[in-house]
């Protein structure tokens, strides 16, 4: 790793563990408090937390870096832990609250009817039931937060291993970057929608759906940094050309696809199983039920979820493309972006920036970090319960 990238691998590991522990305590505590406060206040707080938590984690990381890190601070392990904690807490609180909410109202009412107080319900009923999902959320958020923070530094170090021509070129491809990404995004949305529909409404009873669920959750939780760092050498090797606009489009598709599939499934799963059952009992086929009943009912939330997925993927994707463009073809950029690499990527005081002329680390140097991110994400995906699917609950 670059000499300017201060934390060593053990420091990154230690910072991650420390940040995970602190974030878990803070976020789970905050989410539990949300269960206990009066409903009106809880609704208000949830809106605020969801607003903050919905900000893509890479944007949150950039904001935290800019806001919290004094210009002359080197990125030590402890600083990384603080930054990571600040990045993770909002999104983690939102996810913990969502997980706690899945413990159904009848279950809470039953406990209350037996004399349990709000706190004891939260501690004895809600928390134990939600523990595996919370652990999964913590690890996923940790991986994403760490990935997002390191994106701003390690990616540059990684791309620095490549020759200048191996970086993203905006002229690449027949269509140019914009149309190409539009085509990739549209195609990905269509394919992901079909995949989401298939898994939610056509795959019940298949033994391989759970592993696929895990893989999709894993892919969607994988930090963009992993895709970006691994994509460049893979594309270079496969296409025998330097990464170009095609690579950028492929990166966008990879970031969008799993998110979009999950978004579609989430919207379809929200349509009550009883409606499908009523339709099937009236002799409607699965396809008719989907077309006449499920899709109309799910259309609005599906559009809302997909818009969120596209926004998130775009915001995750933009920094990488900006890096590539800024470092390779400044003249191709509008004037305000020409100094992007000096104005934004080497954020004030972050000694990540590796000048193009300086010696850079090779890809194997960042492999431990990538391995850590992939490992965290894998465990998180395994711990995360399947989406709240209708599969198995309905005839």
């Amino acid at each position: 790793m670059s000499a300017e990238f201060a934390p060593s691998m053990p420091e990154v590991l230690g910072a991650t563990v420390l940040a995970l522990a602190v974030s878990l305590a803070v976020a789970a505590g905050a989410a539990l408090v949300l269960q206990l406060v009066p409903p009106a206040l809880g609704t208000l707080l949830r809106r605020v937390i969801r607003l903050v938590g919905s900000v893509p984690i890479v944007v949150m990381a950039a904001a935290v870096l800019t806001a919290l890190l004094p210009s002359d601070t080197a990125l030590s392990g402890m600083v990384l832990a603080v930054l990571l904690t600040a990045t993770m807490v909002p999104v983690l609180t939102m996810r913990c609250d969502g997980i706690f909410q899945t413990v159904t109202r009848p279950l809470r009412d039953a406990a209350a009817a037996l004399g349990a107080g709000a706190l004891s319900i939260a501690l004895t009923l809600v928390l134990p039931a939600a523990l595996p999902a919370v652990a999964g959320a913590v690890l996923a958020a940790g991986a994403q937060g760490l990935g997002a923070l390191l994106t701003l530094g390690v990616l540059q170090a990684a791309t620095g291993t490549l020759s200048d021509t191996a970086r993203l070129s905006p002229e690449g491809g027949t269509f140019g970057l914009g149309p190409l990404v539009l085509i990739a995004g549209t195609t990905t949305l269509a394919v992901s929608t079909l995949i989401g529909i298939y898994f939610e409404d056509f795959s019940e009873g298949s033994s391989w759906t759970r592993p696929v669920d895990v893989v999709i959750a894993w892919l969607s939780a994988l930090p963009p940094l992993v895709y970006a760092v691994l994509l460049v050498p893979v594309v270079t090797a496969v296409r025998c050309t330097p990464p170009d606009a095609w690579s950028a489009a492929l990166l966008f598709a990879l970031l969008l696809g799993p998110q979009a599939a999950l978004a579609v499934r989430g919207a379809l799963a929200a349509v009550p199983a009883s409606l499908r059952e009523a339709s099937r009992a009236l002799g409607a086929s699965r396809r008719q039920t989907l077309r006449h009943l499920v899709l109309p009912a799910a259309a609005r939330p599906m559009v809302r979820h997909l818009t969120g997925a596209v926004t998130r993927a775009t915001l995750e994707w933009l920094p990488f493309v900006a890096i590539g463009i800024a470092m390779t073809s400044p003249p191709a950029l509008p004037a305000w972006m020409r100094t992007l690499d000096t104005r934004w990527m080497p954020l004030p005081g972050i000694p990540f920036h590796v000048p193009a002329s300086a010696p850079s680390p090779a890809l194997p140097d960042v492999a431990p970090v990538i391995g850590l991110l992939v490992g965290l994400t894998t465990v998180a995906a395994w711990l995360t319960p399947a989406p709240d699917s209708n599969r198995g609950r309905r005839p």
Partner: protein
Amino acid sequence: MLQTERLTVHVGGVRALDGVSLDVPAGTVTAVIGPTGCGKTTLLRTINRMISLLPSVRIEGDVRLQGASIFTSGMRVTDLRRRVGLVGADTALLPGSVIDNMTYGLEVSGQWRTARARLVRAEEALREVHLWDEVKDQLNGPADGLTAGQRRRLTMARALALGPEVLLLDDPAAGLDPVATQRIESLIYTLRQRLTIVLVTNSVRQAARVSDQTAFLWLGRLVECSPTSRLFTTPAERLTEDYVTGRCG
């Protein structure tokens, strides 16, 4: 009309039905009684194959509708469900209006191609369940604005509109007041003249009031099936007598 032959159904590894052989004559009401969890609903759901869409279901034996097995490839499951309608106590209303609920099945069946034809058929079915006069002015209003009893009759009308040969009723009066229950029972009495009905009920008295024959299930097995008057007065099995007299179950 309808026969089950040594019907055994495993759901999620649990044997829900165990070798049930039942003969349902045409134009009769057959009540199925038994304690909770004895397999009554599983039996109904197997007869129109709603059960086979659950994961981990294994079915042995056969169900014959007018002599033809319902499990053969020649029997399309969507056609079967139109011929054998199922109305459950928890059957959901579809989103939209009363008339949307009525015309949905007609539309997807493809047999009533024009909107006019579907409306006419819907009106006939609503009249059949004595609901037309109550809802004719709110056909385009939300279906979930109806009372519980009206909703139950709407779901029955919805199934009847498709012209089924057999109607499966899963505790149709569950949770209803005595007046609404009496309406449902009168309806069953009227429908028996042209339909074959299988009625699952948790009320022994209701079974005695409306059925021609009664089947008693216990732990997934058919203990006894005989004409209702005989089963309630001189049951062949001691267990049946204990159940109908309230000494067990």
